[in-house]
C-alpha cells in the first residue's frame, strides 16, 4: 500500500499543528462556535448527541497492521475501547474529547494517518472496491489512481469550501463493487480499443433526500486527464451549485436543473482551458504511485489444497464460513477473507480494541500485513493462503469475527443513527440488532440467501437505504420514531433505487415486517431466484399486500 515520503509526512504534521491552533483559538473563545464549525468539520469532528465524533480517514479503505494496532490503541486511550467502521470505509470514534483531538491527530500522524476532509463541504475520502488488486474480474487496479486523486484533492485550494460535500468513487472491475453511480463523481477504469487505460465518468449520483443515479458525462476519458477533468466538473459546481439551501446544494441538483447535456457543455467549456495544464498526470507519477501497489510476493501454490478440502468436508461450521466469507482471488492458492463486523445483536460495523488487535495480528501473520475496510462495514484480509484459512477462521471465531453472514440478511449496512447522530430522526442500531436476532438461525439465513438490508436514521442516507434490497429509513412523526420500508433497491451495474411499500411502522413492528417480506419471497421464489429478483419480477404489490394484511388483522384484534 501507499507509504508516505517526507512530503506526505510534512503535510500531515503541518495539519496537526494547524488544527491544534484552531482548537486553541476555539477553546479560548477567539473563534465562535459557528466559525469553528467548518474548521472542525473539515477535520472530521462532529458534535454529536452525547459527545463529539471523530471520523478518521482510511483512504480507499486500505490499512496496515501497524495502523490498525494504532487505531485500537487510540480507541483504548481516548475513547471507550471500540471504533465504528463506516460506509465510507473510514473509522469513527464516538466518544473522544474535543480538547484531545489534536493529540489523537498527532498519534495518527505517526502511522501516516489523518482525519483531513473526512467531513465538511469539500472533497471527501476517495472510495473503491474492497477487492481492488486481487479480484479475478478486475481489468484495471484503481488504487494508484485513487491515491493520485487523494493527493490532488487534499487541500485543493479552489475546492476547499464547496456548496456541499463531494464524494468520488473509482472502480476497475466489470462488476462494479464501488457503487460509482451513487457518487458525485464516479469513475470506472477500463481498457479501450487501443488497449489503453480509459475512464468512464459518471456525475451527479447520490443518495440523501433526493436519490438519483449518476449520469454518464464522459464515455472515454484518457487517464492522464483525470485530475483536470475533475477540476472542470468541480469548478462548474463550485460556481453554480446552490448555496442557499443545503438540501438542494449537492451537484446532483445542479446536474438535474441544467440537464446532463447542458452540464456537459459547461464542463467541456471549462475543460478546454484546463486540459493539458500542469495537473495532467504523467506516466512517471502514475508509475511512482503504482509501485506501492505492486503485486504481493505470492508463493507459487497449486489451485487446490488437500488439508483445506478435508477441513471443509469435516467441519460444517467452517464450511458455512468458507461459503459466505471467503472470496475468489486472482492468484492461484490464495483467497480473500471477510471478517464480519456484523455478529447478531451487536451494532453493525463496530469493532472493539481487542478485536482490532486480533485482526491486525491476523493480517501480519497471514496477509502481508495489510487489510481493507469495505463499504459494507466489514474488514477484509486480502491475501490468505488456502492452507491458512482454517487457522484464520479459528482465531476469528474465538473473537466474534467469523459470523458466516456476509452478503446475507444480517450483514446489515447501518448508520450510527439516533444513538449517536444529532441529525437522526430515529435510532437505527437497535432495529438492526432486533432484525439480526429475528433471523439468528443460520440454516434459515442461508436458505433465504443473498440479501442486502440497509438502514439509515434519516434522509441523509448514510446507511444507503435507497439501494438496499430492503431499505429502512427512520422518520419522525410528531416527535416519535417511525420506520419507512422500501424494497427493490440494488447496487452494482444494474443499480436501482427502492420503492416505498406504504405507511411507516413502529420500532417493535420492524422484525415482523421484515419477516413477512421474507415469507412472501420464500413462498413465491423460483429455484435459484434471489430476493431482489423476485421483487423485480413481481413488483411491490404482493409484498405490500402481505405486510399490511397482517397489520390489519392485528389491529382488528385489538
Amino acid at each position: 500500500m501507499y507509504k508516505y515520503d517526507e512530503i506526505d509526512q510534512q503535510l500531515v504534521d503541518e495539519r496537526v499543528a494547524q488544527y491544534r491552533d484552531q482548537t486553541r483559538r476555539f477553546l479560548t473563545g477567539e473563534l465562535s462556535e459557528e466559525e469553528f464549525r467548518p474548521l472542525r468539520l473539515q477535520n472530521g469532528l462532529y458534535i454529536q448527541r452525547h459527545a463529539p465524533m471523530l471520523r478518521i480517514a482510511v483512504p480507499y479503505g486500505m490499512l496496515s497492521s501497524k495502523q490498525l494496532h494504532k487505531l485500537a490503541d487510540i480507541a483504548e486511550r481516548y475513547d471507550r475501547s471500540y471504533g465504528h467502521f463506516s460506509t465510507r470505509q473510514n473509522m469513527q470514534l464516538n466518544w473522544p474529547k474535543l480538547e484531545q483531538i489534536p493529540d489523537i491527530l498527532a498519534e495518527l500522524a505517526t502511522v501516516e494517518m489523518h482525519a483531513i476532509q473526512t467531513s465538511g463541504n469539500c472533497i471527501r475520502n476517495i472510495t473503491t472496491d474492497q477487492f481492488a488488486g486481487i479480484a479475478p474480474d478486475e481489468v484495471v487496479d484503481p488504487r494508484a489512481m485513487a491515491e493520485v486523486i487523494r493527493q490532488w484533492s487534499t487541500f485543493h485550494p479552489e475546492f476547499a469550501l464547496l456548496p456541499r460535500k463531494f464524494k468520488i468513487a473509482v472502480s476497475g472491475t466489470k462488476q462494479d463493487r464501488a457503487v460509482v453511480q451513487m457518487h458525485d463523481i464516479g469513475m470506472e477504469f477500463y481498457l479501450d480499443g487501443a488497449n489503453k487505460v480509459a475512464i468512464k465518468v459518471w456525475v451527479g449520483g447520490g443518495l440523501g433526500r433526493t436519490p438519483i443515479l449518476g449520469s454518464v458525462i464522459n464515455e472515454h476519458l484518457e487517464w492522464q486527464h483525470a485530475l483536470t477533468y475533475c477540476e472542470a466538473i468541480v469548478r462548474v459546481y463550485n460556481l453554480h451549485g446552490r448555496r442557499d439551501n443545503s438540501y438542494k446544494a449537492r451537484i446532483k441538483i445542479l446536474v438535474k436543473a441544467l440537464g446532463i447535456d447542458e452540464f456537459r457543455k459547461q464542463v467541456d467549456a471549462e475543460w478546454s482551458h484546463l486540459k493539458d495544464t500542469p495537473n495532467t498526470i504523467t506516466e512517471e507519477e502514475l508509475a511512482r504511485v503504482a509501485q506501492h501497489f505492486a503485486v504481493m510476493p505470492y508463493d507459487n501454490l497449486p489451485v487446490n489444497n488437500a488439508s483445506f478440502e478435508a477441513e471443509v468436508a469435516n467441519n460444517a461450521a467452517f464450511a458455512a464460513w468458507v461459503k459466505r466469507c471467503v472470496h475468489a482471488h486472482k492468484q492461484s492458492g490464495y483467497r480473500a477473507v471477510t471478517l464480519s463486523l456484523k455478529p447478531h445483536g451487536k451494532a453493525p460495523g463496530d469493532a472493539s480494541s481487542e478485536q482490532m488487535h486480533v485482526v491486525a495480528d491476523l493480517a501480519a501473520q497471514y496477509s502481508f500485513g495489510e487489510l481493507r475496510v469495505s463499504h459494507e462495514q466489514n474488514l477484509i484480509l486480502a491475501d490468505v493462503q488456502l492452507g491458512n484459512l482454517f487457522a484464520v477462521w479459528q482465531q476469528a471465531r474465538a473473537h466474534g469475527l467469523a459470523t458466516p453472514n456476509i452478503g446475507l440478511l444480517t450483514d446489515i449496512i447501518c448508520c450510527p443513527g439516533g444513538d449517536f447522530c444529532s441529525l437522526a430522526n430515529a435510532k437505527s442500531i437497535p432495529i438492526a440488532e432486533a432484525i439480526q436476532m429475528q433471523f439468528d438461525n443460520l440454516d434459515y439465513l442461508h436458505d433465504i440467501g443473498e440479501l442486502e438490508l440497509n438502514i439509515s436514521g434519516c434522509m441523509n442516507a448514510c446507511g444507503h437505504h435507497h439501494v438496499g434490497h430492503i431499505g429502512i429509513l427512520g422518520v419522525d412523526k410528531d416527535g416519535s420514531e417511525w420506520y419507512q420500508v422500501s424494497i427493490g433497491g440494488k447496487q452494482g451495474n444494474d443499480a436501482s433505487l427502492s420503492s416505498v411499500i406504504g405507511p411507516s411502522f413502529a420500532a417493535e413492528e420492524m422484525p415482523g415486517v421484515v419477516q413477512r417480506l421474507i415469507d412472501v419471497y420464500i413462498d413465491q421464489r423460483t429455484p435459484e431466484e434471489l430476493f431482489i429478483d423476485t421483487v423485480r419480477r413481481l413488483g411491490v404489490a404482493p409484498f405490500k399486500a402481505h405486510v399490511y394484511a397482517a397489520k390489519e388483522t392485528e389491529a382488528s384484534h385489538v
Partner: protein
Amino acid sequence: MSNLIYQNAIATDDWTLVELPKIEKVVRMQAGKVVQFHLTGESTISATQITDTVIPPNGLVLLPMSVYIARKASLENRVAKQEVGIWLATHERLETLIEVEADLNRFPLITVFVERFSDGRIFSLGNLLRTRYGYNNTLRAFGDVLRDQLYFLKRSGFDSYLIRADRNAQEALSSLNDFTRPYQGAVDEKLPVWRRVSRK
C-alpha cells in the same frame, strides 16, 4: 491599526469602497417563486440602485462591478488615471465584466466580496481572474475574511486580504504559510509536487 494584508505584511488601505444604496427588501414573487439569481439563490441588483450609487469625485474608488459596467462611459478618464478599482460579490458573473472590458489590467485593484466564510466561490473567481483573464495587478478579498481562508486564497491568486474588523491581521499573517509543500498545482505554485521535486 490597519487590518489589510498586502503580500506578506500589514499595509494601509488607500481606496474608498463605494457601495450600492441599500434597498427595502422587497421579495418579488414570480409564478410563486422568489426571483433568484441564476441557480445560486441571490437576489439581483436593480437599475435604480445602480444609478443612485454615489461615486466620490476624487481619489481612488472601488466601484461595484455592476455600476462600472452601466456607467463605464462617464468613468473613462478616471480609469485612465488609474483611479478606478472594481469589486464584485461571489455570485456575480465575471463574464459580464469581460464582455465590456477586455483588458482587466486597466484596474490597479480588483476585489472580491465574500459574505460568508463558507462561500468558496471566491477561490474559483480568483483562479479565473488570474489564469483565464490575465489579471496581474492586486487581487484582494474582503468581507468575512478570516485567517483560515488565507492559505487557500493565496493559492487561488489573491495577494491582498482585508481581515474582518474584529480580528487581528497581524496574527492572521502566519496562516499564509500553513503548509509548506502543496500537492496540486494551483495559481501561485503552478506545478503539482511531482513536477517540482523528484519523489521516489
